[in-house]
């Protein structure tokens, strides 16, 4: 494959996969939020906070997309790896890997949405469990953070900004 395909795919997968996962995660938690609010409007605030947690993965995806496009020169200048040399292919493959890492770890938004959904139900039954619900849901976030950190290292050391 040409370097441009690797770079574009990397950027697209980082933002696309993480974004889609966030959408599913927020969808699952949002359905639970609607359920508890249907029974009691007082649940709105707690449900909204828990519902928003799976959105962060899409932000990580977007950051990675910008970094990939920036380091490949697509943003702020000409494409740096236009020639299909071994060095250019390796660098574009690193960018692809970085995007894929963030995209795949961003899938943690789906289980995070499921945890948040169960948390929303638990908080509706017993509002004292709100903090615990946030902590349980936030645990799934760590995988996405690891992915983002890994991607930053790959981009910074393998290609350079």
């Amino acid at each position, binding site marked *: 494959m040409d370097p441009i395909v690797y770079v574009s795919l990397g950027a697209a997968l980082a933002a696309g996969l993480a974004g889609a996962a966030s959408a599913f995660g927020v969808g699952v938690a949002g359905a639970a939020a609607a*359920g508890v609010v249907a029974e009691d409007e007082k649940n709105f605030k707690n449900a909204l906070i828990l519902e928003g947690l799976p959105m962060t993965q899409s932000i990580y995806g977007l950051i990675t997309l910008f970094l990939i496009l920036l380091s490949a020169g697509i943003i702020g200048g000409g494409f740096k790896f236009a020639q299909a040399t071994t060095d250019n292919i390796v660098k574009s493959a690193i960018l692809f890997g970085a995007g894929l890492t963030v995209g795949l770890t961003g899938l943690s938004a789906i289980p995070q949405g499921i945890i948040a959904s169960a948390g929303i139900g638990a908080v509706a039954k017993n509002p004292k469990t709100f903090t615990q619900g946030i902590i349980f849901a936030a645990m799934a976030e760590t995988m996405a953070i690891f992915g983002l950190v890994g991607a930053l290292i790959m981009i910074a050391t393998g290609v350079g900004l």
Partner: protein
Amino acid sequence: MEAVTGILNTTIAVVFTWVGYKTARILWKYTPYSYPNARIKAMEAKLLTEQKFNELAESRTLQNFVVNLEDTDYKDYLADVSSYTVEEVERALERALAGTYGLMFRILPKRSRGFFGLLLEGWDVRNIANVVKAKLANEPASDYVVELGTMLPKVKAMAEAKTLEEILVILEGTPYEEVYQKLLLGEIDVTRFETELYRMHYGKLLSYALSRKDDERIILEEFVRLSIDRVNILTALRAKKAGLSAEETKPMLIPGGTVKLDPLLHVDSFDMALAELDSTKYGQVIRDVREEIEKDLSVLEKALNDHIIERISELERFYPLSIATPLSYVLRKEREIRKLRAIAKLIENGVEPERIKELAGEVA
């Protein structure tokens, strides 16, 4: 270079296929329960507390009892109560339970709502058995009809029927026609008729449970088998108290339970029968209420009901986004309504509040 690209592409394809499959499975399994289970959790917070039951027990009149329920979910169902008789209050509570079943049916995913339809059919079975028994005993059958089930109009028509043959016409085309025909022809007695109805019902529940997959199957199978065990244990102990032989009792048992009741049926006394149950998984439940059981078997019925609710609640904690949540809620709601009905009856009978508090806890 081409070989490296090929390996890379193949790896990506495999990873994506695996991730896609796993993601789709997770979404299919959990997403449909997200809305209903969260809503049911919010409804659980509105179940009546012990403090509320104590307030209700102190109502003294049925009018106060109804007023005390106005800040609860029963308000809408009690709005039509005007004469404040115990029958009217009971009907309103039954409508509330029917409303709960209706809500479950509407909000649960298609793949599991069928089970609640079958649970509703259980009320049909109870109604049909009660109406037929009342008719045979020349009692007013409509007093025994619970306003719940999938064929309530037919059940009401049965209660109004002038003859037993008329009931056969009403039951025509239903799964209960054949067994009722046998009763009319004298091939079976009314006890066997009732057993056959319940066998049919539990058979349907069990085959539905076994047709499910993964955690849904685990939860439903556990619930159905626990329910069958409850019915069988109570039947066997009642038979033992009545001095029936093992041969007479066996046809009254429902297949599909987990407890082997054969040794229990062959012992000489009620005490020995209880001792036989000691080594089963219900041993602890029975030991906790052993002394009371000897006087009154309904204590054991309550203990077994509570055990089923407890077990399903355990499964609910293990599988938060599953059918365990609605199932546990419906069982708790049924228990709450049983308790409310008991309190209403005791108030009507002029029982003192302190005594009502004691008795209501015992019956439900």
